[in-house]
C-alpha cells in the first residue's frame, strides 16, 4: 500500500480547519516539531526525510530562519513543493529552489483586498493628519492645537507597482476623488489600467500628492525610494507603504518627515521589523500599524486555503494554482491554472 504524501506544516492552520480536515484524507499533513533551525536540518535527514511538500507562512522564518541556499540544500530529495500562504516571498531563495527542482507557490489573490483596504486607511489617516488627533484625544487634550489635514478630492495618487494590490487601491481611490497615475516595470493594457495614467518613475515622484508603494521586495527594489527620490517629491507629500519596509530607506524617510518635506506617512511595514526607527516611532505625523496587512479572520482563512490547495495539487500530481512569477518565466515551467 502506498502511503499518502506527507506535507510538513511549519505553522498550524488556525482558520480553514475544514480544508485541513479534507487535506488529511488524501495526504498526510503534520505539524513541525523541530525546535530550531539546526534541529530542523537534522530532522530533514531523519523523520522528515520523505516529505513531499512544505506549508509555510510569514511566521515560519522565526524558527526555521530564511529559506536560503543553506536551508534549501538541507531539504530531502523527496521535497518538491514549498507552498507559502503569503503574497510576499522575499525570504525564499527562488533560484536555489528552481535549481533543486522545487516549485514554490505563494498566495497573491487572497491578500489583495485586505492590503488595499489597509492602504486606503493609512492614506486617509496620513493625509487627514488623524494620528496626532487620535493621540491628543487619548492624552486628554481632545483637539487642542491640532493642525488641519487635507482632503483627497482632486489630489494625485501615485501608485508605485500596479499589480493586483496597486489596481485594487486605485479602484478604492476613485470615489474619494483622487486621480491615479502609476509606475510599473511595464505599461498595463487599457483594461487593467482602467484609466490610470502610466508615467515614468521620475514623473511619479514629481507629480504625486500621495505615493503608495506596492512593489515586491527584491534586489532591484531595495531602497528604491531614498534621499534622492524624496528630494524629487512635492513638498508636503504623503507616503504610504504596505509592501515591504526595505523598499524605502527608513532613515531617509524619517529625516524628511522630521524636516516637514514629507507631511505624513502611513506605514504597515518597516525595514527591520519588529524594530522601528526610534525617531520615526516618536513622530506623531507617522500613522504606524505593526504589519497587520492581512490580519483578518476572513483573509487568513483564504490564504491558508490557497496554500493548502496548492499543496494538495502538488502532492496529487495536479497543476498548481499560483506558482511564483520567477518560476513561471522559466521555459518549461508549469503554467498557472488561471
Amino acid at each position, binding site marked *: 500500500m502506498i502511503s499518502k504524501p506527507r506535507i510538513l506544516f511549519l505553522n498550524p492552520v488556525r482558520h480553514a480547519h475544514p480544508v485541513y480536515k479534507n487535506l488529511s484524507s488524501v495526504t498526510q499533513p503534520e505539524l513541525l516539531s523541530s525546535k530550531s533551525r539546526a534541529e530542523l536540518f537534522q530532522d530533514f535527514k531523519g523523520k522528515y526525510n520523505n516529505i513531499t511538500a512544505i506549508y509555510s507562512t510569514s511566521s515560519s522564518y522565526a524558527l526555521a530562519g530564511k529559506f536560503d541556499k543553506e536551508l534549501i540544500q538541507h531539504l530531502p530529495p523527496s521535497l518538491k513543493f514549498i507552498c507559502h500562504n503569503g503574497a510576499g516571498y522575499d525570504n525564499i531563495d527562488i533560484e536555489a529552489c528552481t535549481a533543486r527542482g522545487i516549485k514554490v507557490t505563494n498566495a497573491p489573490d487572497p491578500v489583495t483586498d485586505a492590503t488595499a483596504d489597509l492602504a486606503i486607511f493609512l492614506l486617509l489617516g496620513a493625509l487627514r493628519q488623524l494620528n496626532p488627533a487620535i493621540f491628543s484625544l487619548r492624552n486628554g487634550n481632545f483637539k487642542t492645537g491640532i493642525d488641519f489635514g487635507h*482632503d483627497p478630492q482632486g489630489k494625485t495618487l501615485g501608485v508605485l507597482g500596479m499589480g493586483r494590490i496597486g489596481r485594487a487601491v486605485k479602484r478604492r481611490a476613485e470615489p474619494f476623488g483622487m486621480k491615479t497615475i502609476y509606475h510599473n516595470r511595464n505599461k498595463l493594457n487599457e483594461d487593467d489600467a482602467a484609466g490610470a495614467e502610466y508615467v515614468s518613475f521620475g514623473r511619479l515622484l514629481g507629480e504625486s500628492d500621495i505615493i503608495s508603494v506596492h512593489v515586491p521586495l527584491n534586489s532591484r527594489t531595495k531602497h528604491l525610494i531614498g534621499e534622492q527620490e524624496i528630494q524629487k517629491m512635492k513638498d508636503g507629500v504623503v507616503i504610504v507603504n504596505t509592501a515591504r519596509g526595505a523598499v524605502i530607506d527608513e532613515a531617509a524617510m524619517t529625516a524628511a518627515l522630521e524636516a516637514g518635506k514629507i507631511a505624513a506617512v502611513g506605514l504597515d511595514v518597516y525595514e527591520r521589523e519588529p524594530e522601528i526607527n526610534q525617531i520615526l516611532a516618536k513622530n506623531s505625523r507617522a500613522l504606524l500599524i505593526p504589519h497587520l496587512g492581512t490580519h483578518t479572520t476572513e483573509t487568513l482563512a483564504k490564504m491558508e486555503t490557497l496554500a493548502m490547495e496548492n499543496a494538495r495539487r502538488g502532492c496529487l500530481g495536479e497543476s498548481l494554482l499560483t506558482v511564483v512569477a520567477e518560476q513561471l518565466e522559466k521555459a518549461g515551467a508549469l503554467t498557472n491554472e488561471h
Partner: protein
Amino acid sequence: MTKPLVLLLGEIEHAHEEWASISEIADIIEPKARSREEFIKECKSGAFDNVVATYRTFQSVAITGLIDEELIALLPRSLKFIAHNGAGYDQIDVHACTAHGIRVSNVPTAVDDATADTNMFLILGALRGFNTSMIALRNGHWKGSPPPPLGHDPQGKVLGILGMGGIGRNLKKKAEAFGMTVQYYNRSKLSEELSGGAKYVGFDELLKTSDVLSLNLPLNKQTRHIISTKEFEQMKKGVVIVNTARGAVMDEAALVVALEKGQVWSCGLDVFEEEPKVHAGLIANPHVMLVPHMGTWTVETQTKMETWCIDNIRSAIEKGKLMSPVGEQKDI
C-alpha cells in the same frame, strides 16, 4: 450712509480674503466677552445694538453657550440673520429664532466629502481593530502582548446607514468600493436615483441586520439618544458602530456597557455627547477608535465652509435673505 453691522462670533481661519470683502459692505464687531455670563452682560449693555447679521462658528459656543431662548431674547431687535458655519446646527434653537423673527442658515453639502471620508476611515479602523496595536506600537511593544484581536474585512458586510442625507449618500459610494452592501433608514424613502440602489429598510430591521451601523443623522429632540440600551440589544452580536454625526444621538454610557458586554465589538467615534469630554469607559478601551471631531478639519473643506457661510452673510446684507436657510425655516 452707515454700513450695516455684522457680529463675528468665533474665528475666520482660512477665508480671509472673502471675509475682508465683507468689510466693504458692512462694519464688523466682535464680542469682548469670554464667557456666557460676560456675553449676556455685553448684550444688555447695548454693545451689539444695530447688529443685523451674525456669523457664528461651532467653537464659539465656548463663549456664548447654546443659542437658546434665554440668549435669543437678549439679542438686539435689529438682528435678523444668524449664519452658522457648520452642517449640524443643534446648538441653535431654531424654533425660538423663528419666534423672534431671526432666520438661520447652515452649511450643507460642503461638509459631505470630508465627513464621509472620516466616516470611512473609522469604519475601516474599527472593523479591522487597528487601534489596539497602534497604541501597543507607540508604547514600544510592536503588535502588543497578547497579540491584537483579528479584524474583519468589509467585503460582503452589510453597512446600515441611519440618515441618508448628503453625507450618508456620499458614504455609500465610498463603502461600496470596499465591497460593502448598503442599506439605510431615513425619515422618508428616497428615490432610486438618489439612494443609488441602496435598500430602504425599517429602523428595527436596520438594527437587526447590519454588520456595521453608521450614524449620519442630525441631532434634534427626536433623535437624541435614538441609539441606546434597547437598540443595542436588537443589534447583531459583535456589531461595529461608527458615529460622525453628533455624540448625543447615541447614549454614550450605554455604548460603554454594550462594548463591555461584547454586544458591540468595536466602534469608531468622531463625536461625543459632551465634547471635549469623552466617557472614561471609552478612553479605557484600547479597542475603539476615537477621533476628536475632525470630520471637516481640512484646509480645503474649512475654506469652503467659511466661504459658504460668508456668502450667506453677504446675501443677507445685499438681498435681505439667506442663501441656505435651515430645513425648518425653508418655507417661511
